[in-house]
C-alpha cells in the first residue's frame, strides 16, 4: 500500500484575543485565567478556513484533487461553503469540493476519509465557539481554523506518515445543539468523563493492535474533545508525553481542535516521532502518525505560537457585539444592500480570489481587472494576475467615522503593491492608533457584511506584524 500522510498544513488563529479576566470583570463569573481567540466581526468559519488553507498551500506544487471543509458553524446551509474557499484559493474547477459538518466529530471523519483515499486532499476545518455570557462554553471556547494537505509520498514529500487508527462509536447525549441555536449545551461533566475514560482505553488497545505497535512505541499523545483533561490524565499514567492542549491561550476550538493540536505538535516536531491523536466526540477516534526528516528540513512559517504572539486584546463588549450578542448603535447611514449574485459570478476571480489583470503592452497592473488599460494598450489584451499574496505599502490613509460598518470607525488606506498595482482598500485587524502611512500590509479574505443572508466576501488589507516584517 502507498504511504499516506501529511504533505503540508496551515493554521489560522484570529488576531483578536479575549482575556478571561475581562469576562469575570463584566459578569462576575468564571476563573479569569488565560485568554481565548476571537474571530473578528468580518470573519466567519469560511474566511478563517481560507486563511488556514492559504497557509497550507503556500509555495505548494501539489496537484490538488479534493477540498473538504468541515465546520459546525457553517456560514451557509444548502449552499456549499467549501466552494467559497475553492474560489478564494483559485483552485482548478475539477477539484472535488464538498462540505462536511454538523457535528464536531465530522472534522476527524473528514481527515480520516482524506487519509484513507489515494487522492491529494486539502482538509480544512474551522470553528467558532461561543456560549451564553459568563458561561464556561464562552470562556473556554476558541475560534481557529486548520488545513491539512493529505496525500501520498508520490504526490509530495511527507512531513508525517499516517500509520493507521481506529474509530469507536458510542451514542449518548453529551454536548448538543438544536439547529439555529447560537450555542450548544453540555450534560453534567462527571457523566461524560466516566463514559470516555474506559472508551479510550478500549479504543487505544484496539488501535495499537491494528497498527502493530505497543504503548511504549508512542512518543506523544494529543487529546482533543470534551473531557480531554481527564483522558489526558489517564494517558499520562502510561508514561507518554501529553503536551499543552492550547486551551489556556486559544481555548477549545471545537471541531478544529484535534487538527490544531496536531499542527501545534508538528510546528516543533523532531523527526521519527510517533504521535497519537485522540478525539473524543460521540465515541473515540485515534490516528497514529510518525514524523519524517522533512519536519526538520522545511522552513517553518507562521506557527501557532507565532500567531499567538501577534494577537491583540479585544474588549469583552466588542466581542459580544461582534458575535451579535450585544446590539450596538451603528452610524446613521443606509445599511448595505446584498451583492448581486450574477454580478459577483462575472467577477468571481476578482471578488473571491483577488485576481487583477496586467496589460501586455504597458505592464500596468489593474485592480479590479480591466478590459482597457489606463495608459494605453489593446482592448482585451491583459493577463490575469493573482494579487492575494502581494505585499503593499500604505500611501495615504484615513479613518471614517461616518460610514456604515459593524465595527465603526473604518480605517481605510490607499495601498500601493510591491511590483505594481494600487487599491484603495479597507484595513482590518487594526485601528488608527496602530497603523501609519508607509506601513506594510498583506491581504486577507473577509466577509464585508451580510445582507439578505448573502455574505459579501472580499479582501481587506491587514498590517504585517512586526515579527513577520522582520523575517
Amino acid at each position, binding site marked *: 500500500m502507498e504511504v499516506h500522510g501529511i504533505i503540508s498544513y496551515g493554521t489560522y488563529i484570529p488576531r483578536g484575543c479575549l482575556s478571561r479576566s475581562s469576562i469575570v470583570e463584566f459578569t462576575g463569573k468564571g476563573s479569569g485565567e488565560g485568554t481565548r481567540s476571537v474571530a473578528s466581526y468580518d470573519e466567519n468559519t469560511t474566511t478563517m478556513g481560507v486563511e488556514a488553507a492559504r497557509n497550507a498551500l503556500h509555495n505548494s506544487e501539489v496537484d490538488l484533487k479534493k477540498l473538504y471543509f468541515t465546520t459546525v458553524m457553517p456560514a451557509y446551509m444548502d449552499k456549499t461553503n467549501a466552494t467559497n474557499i475553492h474560489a478564494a484559493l483559485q483552485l482548478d474547477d475539477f477539484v472535488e469540493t464538498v462540505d462536511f459538518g454538523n457535528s464536531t466529530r465530522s472534522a476527524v471523519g473528514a481527515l480520516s476519509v482524506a487519509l484513507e483515499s489515494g487522492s491529494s486532499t486539502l482538509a480544512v476545518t474551522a470553528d467558532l465557539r461561543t456560549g451564553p455570557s459568563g458561561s464556561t462554553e464562552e470562556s473556554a471556547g476558541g475560534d481557529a481554523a486548520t488545513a491539512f494537505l493529505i496525500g501520498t509520498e508520490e504526490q509530495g514529500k511527507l512531513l508525517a506518515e499516517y500509520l493507521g487508527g481506529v474509530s469507536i462509536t458510542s451514542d449518548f447525549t453529551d454536548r448538543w445543539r438544536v439547529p439555529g441555536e447560537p450555542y450548544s449545551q453540555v450534560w453534567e461533566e462527571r457523566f461524560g468523563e466516566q463514559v470516555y475514560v474506559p472508551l479510550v482505553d478500549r479504543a487505544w488497545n484496539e488501535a495499537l493492535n491494528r497498527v502493530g505497535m505497543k504503548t511504549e512505541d508512542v512518543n506523544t499523545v494529543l487529546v482533543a474533545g470534551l473531557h480531554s483533561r481527564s483522558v489526558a490524565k489517564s494517558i499520562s499514567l502510561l508514561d507518554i508525553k501529553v503536551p499543552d492542549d492550547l486551551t489556556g491561550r486559544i481555548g477549545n476550538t471545537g471541531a478544529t481542535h484535534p487538527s490544531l493540536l496536531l499542527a501545534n505538535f508538528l510546528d516543533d516536531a523532531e523527526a521519527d516521532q510517533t504521535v497519537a491523536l485522540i478525539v473524543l466526540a460521540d465515541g473515540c477516534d485515534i490516528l497514529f502518525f510518525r514524523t519524517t526528516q522533512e519536519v526538520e528540513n522545511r522552513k517553518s512559517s507562521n506557527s501557532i505560537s507565532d500567531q499567538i504572539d501577534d494577537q491583540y486584546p479585544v474588549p469583552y463588549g466588542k466581542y459580544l457585539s461582534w458575535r451579535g450578542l450585544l446590539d450596538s448603535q451603528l*452610524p*446613521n*447611514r*443606509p445599511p*448595505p*444592500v*446584498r*451583492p*448581486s449574485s450574477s*454580478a*459577483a459570478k*462575472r*467577477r468571481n476571480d*476578482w*471578488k473571491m480570489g483577488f485576481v487583477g489583470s496586467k496589460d501586455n503592452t504597458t505592464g*500596468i497592473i*489593474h*485592480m*479590479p481587472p*480591466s478590459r482597457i488599460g*489606463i*495608459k494605453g494598450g489593446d482592448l482585451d489584451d491583459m493577463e490575469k494576475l493573482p494579487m492575494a499574496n502581494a505585499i503593499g505599502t500604505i*500611501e*495615504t*490613509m*484615513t*479613518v*471614517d*467615522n*461616518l*460610514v*456604515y460598518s459593524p465595527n465603526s470607525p*473604518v480605517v*481605510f488606506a*490607499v495601498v*500601493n*503593491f510591491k511590483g*505594481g*498595482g*494600487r*487599491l*484603495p*482598500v*479597507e484595513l482590518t485587524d487594526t485601528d488608527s492608533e496602530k497603523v501609519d*502611512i508607509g506601513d506594510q500590509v498583506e491581504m486577507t479574505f473577509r466577509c*464585508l457584511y451580510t445582507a439578505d443572508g448573502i455574505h*459579501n*466576501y*472580499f479582501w481587506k488589507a491587514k498590517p504585517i506584524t512586526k515579527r513577520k516584517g522582520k523575517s
Partner: protein
Amino acid sequence: MASHGIKDQVAIIGMGCTRFGEHWDKSLEDLIIEAAEETTKSAGIEAESIDAFWFGTSQSAASGISLATPLRISGKPVTRVENYCATGSEALRQACYAVASGAYDSAMALGAEKVKDSGYQGLNAFPMPTDGTNRTLTAAAMFSLILPAYAKRYEVDEDELRYVIARIAEKNHSNGAKNELAQFRREVSAEKICEMPSIAGRLSVMDCAGVADGAAAAIVVRAEDALKYTDKPLYVKALSLVAGDSSGLVDPDFDFTTLPECVDAAHDAYSQAGIKDPKKELAMAEVHDCFTPTEMILMEDLGFCEKGTAWQEVLNGTFDIDGELPVNTDGGLKAFGHPVGASGLRMFYETWLQLRSEAPNDRSISLESAKQALVHNLGGYPGEMVSFVGIVGSEIS
C-alpha cells in the same frame, strides 16, 4: 478635434434660487416650482414660451417627467441629466449648447435635490446592484485623504494644514452669514473649528458641505437676443466638462494632492474664454468646496496660485471677500448648503448677482478690474471624478 467652446454665443437672461436648507415642509415639486417661478419672473417671460428644458437631479427623481409634471410643461422636450455633484452645471451646459446650435431659441436649466426625506445623515445612497467589491467609504473620508498627502508632498505640518482648512471654513461661513438664502448663517472662527472632533481623517463636521434641499435655475437665449429680456445679461464665455477614467484609484503615481480632472477642465475653459491670467482676469470664483481640503487644492488646480502655495495664500487672505480673488462669496457648499443637483446652478446664481452688482452690499465684490467670473463644480472623489469649469461675463468681448 478640439474643444471650440461657444464664447459669447449664449447668454443667461434670468436666474432663480431657493433658500437651501432642511425643507421639511417642502417637496421636490415645491422646490422646482419655486425656482422656476423666480427664474421666469427674473427673465420676464412665461414658462410656456421656453422651448426646451434640462432638469438636473442626482438622487431625487428620474426622467424629464419629474420636471414636466410639477411645472405642467406639455409638448416640450424635457431631459433629465445626472453627473454626480456636477449635475446642476451639466444641465446648464446642455441648455446652452442646445441654444447655441440653433435648435431652440430659449432653454431652461433647472437643478433640484431633495435629500432630507431619507432619515439618514448625509446624501442618499445609490442602490445599484454590484458585485459587492465597490468601496463604501464616505465622501468625507475620501476627500480627507488630501490632507496627509499634501502635508507629505509639500512638507507642511499637518496641524498647520488643519488650521488652513479651518480658515477656509471660517471664510465661507463668514460669507454665508451675509446670504439670506444660505443654509448656515453663523460665523465660526477657525480656532473653534480646529477644536472640533474629527469625523473622517482630520476633518470635522465643520469641514463638510451642508446637506440641504434646494433648487436653482437659469434661462438662456442666443446672445443677440439677450438685451430683449434684460439690460444686464451674463454672457457664457466657456463651458468645460472633464470626466475622469478613475485611473487615480489604479495608478500608484496618483498622490491625492491634485485633481487632474479639474486641472484639465480649467485649462479647456481658459482656452475657450481666452483667459491667460485667471487671478487677474476673474472678478471672483465659485468653486466646489464640498470639503475644505478640496477648496485648498482647487486654488492650485484652477491656476489661482502655484502648486504647493495654496495653503499660504489662504492664510494671506487672497481668496477672502476683500482679497485679490474672492472665492465662494455666497458661502459656498460649506455654508450655502449642497443640494446636489442644484449646486452648480446656485454657483452661477452668485455670479449672476455679483456681476450684475445685485449682491447685498456687505458681500459685494469689486468689479473694477475684471468683469468675468468662474464657476467650478465637481462630482465624485479624488482619483475618480467629473469636473466642470464655466466662465461667464457681463460684457461681450
